[in-house]
């Protein structure tokens, strides 16, 4: 099974984000693989272990954006491709998905493209649906389980999450899938894996390599700002006993008229 797993580099989720001179800053926080993408890599590696084949990590970012790809390689991905082009700096979702779909076609022969459920930076979750649509493949989002995955017979059964419950879906290969945290804990990169990843050579593709013109983004970020500070006066509820504290707290909650 040939699996492409799409990964993105993001600031550590522990970072306190700020805006400096109109630009997003994460201070000295480190850059990491998008935490949701780790589940996607884990799923890809497990499918490969069960069915054979290869796992290729696909990233999109500026030239130095190697954290996500390195992490995927350290976890066990066989190969990687980074798409990088100065003209992609302002790419919106549609442009990003057009570029990713073109890369999937250039890599050729993929049975599955796997995403994390969304990125923790821009948090749109649009790419799995869009890339699938562009490729003309089924889109199976928020998957927690692969119940059946046999590309030779084109049998694909997954469990996907909705607000009201989970759907068991029968679909076919090739397909685009996004994986949730419910899939199961991602593995830690091994020492050997990290060493291998640090020495790995992989291609960087430009728009020209993909045979694409510079996309014109339709979505523009006009401004990014920090949310307004909330003025919160914290009242610590006192009392002799737990019962007394609880009683006072209940009265205070009722006074707020939120129930």
């Amino acid at each position, binding site marked *: 099974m040939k699996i492409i797993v799409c990964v993105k580099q993001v600031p550590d989720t522990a970072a306190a984000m700020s805006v400096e001179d109109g630009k997003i800053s994460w201070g000295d926080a480190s850059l990491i693989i998008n935490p949701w993408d780790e589940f996607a890599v884990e799923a890809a590696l497990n499918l490969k272990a069960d069915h054979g084949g290869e796992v290729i990590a696909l990233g999109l970012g500026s030239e130095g954006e190697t954290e996500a790809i390195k992490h995927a390689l350290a976890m066990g991905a066989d190969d990687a491709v980074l798409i990088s082009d100065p003209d992609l700096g302002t790419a919106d*979702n549609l442009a990003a998905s057009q570029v990713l779909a073109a890369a999937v076609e250039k890599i050729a022969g993929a049975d599955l493209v796997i995403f994390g459920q969304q990125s923790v930076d821009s948090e*749109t979750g*649009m790419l*799995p649906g869009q890339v699938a649509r562009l490729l003309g*493949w089924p889109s199976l989002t928020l998957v927690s389980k692969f119940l059946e995955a046999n590309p030779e017979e084109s049998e694909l059964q997954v469990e996907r999450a909705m607000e009201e*419950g989970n759907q*068991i879906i029968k679909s076919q290969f090739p397909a685009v899938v996004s994986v949730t945290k419910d899939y199961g804990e991602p593995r830690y990169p091994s020492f050997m894996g990290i060493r291998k990843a640090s020495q790995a050579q992989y291609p960087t593709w430009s728009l020209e390599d993909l045979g694409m013109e510079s996309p014109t983004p339709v979505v523009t970020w006009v401004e990014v700002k920090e949310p307004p500070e909330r003025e919160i006066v914290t009242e610590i509820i006192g009392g002799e006993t*737990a019962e007394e*504290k609880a009683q006072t707290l209940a009265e205070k909650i009722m006074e*707020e008229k939120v129930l």
Partner: protein
Amino acid sequence: MTKKILTYVDHHQGKVQPSSWEALGVAASITGDLGGETASLILGKEVESLAEEALQYGADQVFLADEGQMAEFRPELLAAALKQVALDYQPDLILMPTTSRTRVLAGMAAVDLNTGVLVDVIDLDWTGEKITAVRPIYAGKLLASVTCDASPVIITLRGRAFAKPEPDPARTGEVVQVDFQPNEDIPVSEVLEIKAKETGVSLTDAAVIVSGGRGTANNPSLDPPADLSEDEAEVWKARQGFQLISELAEVLGAAVGASRAAVDAGYIPYDHQVGQTGKVVAPDLYIACGISGAIQHLAGMRTSKVIVAVNKDPDAPIFNLARFGVVGDMFEIVPPLTESLREKLES
């Protein structure tokens, strides 16, 4: 200039996601300011009654495709129907609630209609030439103002960010049956089975949330069965802690939330996680029990109207966001709090 708006009514087997009606409130405020009209699109099986509801909530007309093949959420099929209606109706704006389903549908529609999507929007302004939308990024640590230059603009609205309009039973309008012509090229998935979730209030729609963290496993007076391993004993203890949280939630009609630490330790399923890699919520009341308040968790609930924290550690960061705090053991505080609120709500 007057605007044509199409809203998508998201539902599961006829049960509507409440934020679908919030979209009609947003549509009404835009057409109220700028003039225009609103249509709602309803796709499903045995969903005719939803058409009437959509009219009562503010739609001027409804496009309805009531077909067996649309009984379950199959995004490829629904996207094709959405495309057909959008090309026919030519809206300036398509509004959807943000749900697990519309995140796929909206993306597909953007490809089909060659436009952009503004996702999980919490505020809108159409006083200028273009619509400007505000959306939280980095779990709400920052806010981005975004615009879209293509038409129609597709916007998904965060649940509870906009007021739900009052339904007007006197409102009527035309219900147009969609003559859906599916595109045969699309591989459409088949839904074999639905595994319903244990009933409970969903986090993103909840007006009240009671959440538990690591502290749920710290009841020293509990004796786990002797045959459990250390990890199993911890989970066993945490389950008793979450039992207290569920009882409080039940009294308040609230959803049960959890910190990432509690989810990662296996105390409660991921579904309940609030925070940057879980759900971002903004209820009217958020009660955090035994949660210290990691930055990722705070990002996911900081815009809740009233936050209450119960924690043993007086220095826990959660208290910085709390309107009311109790420094104490959740096992001693939560049961009498539940009883006291039960009495007050019953009287």
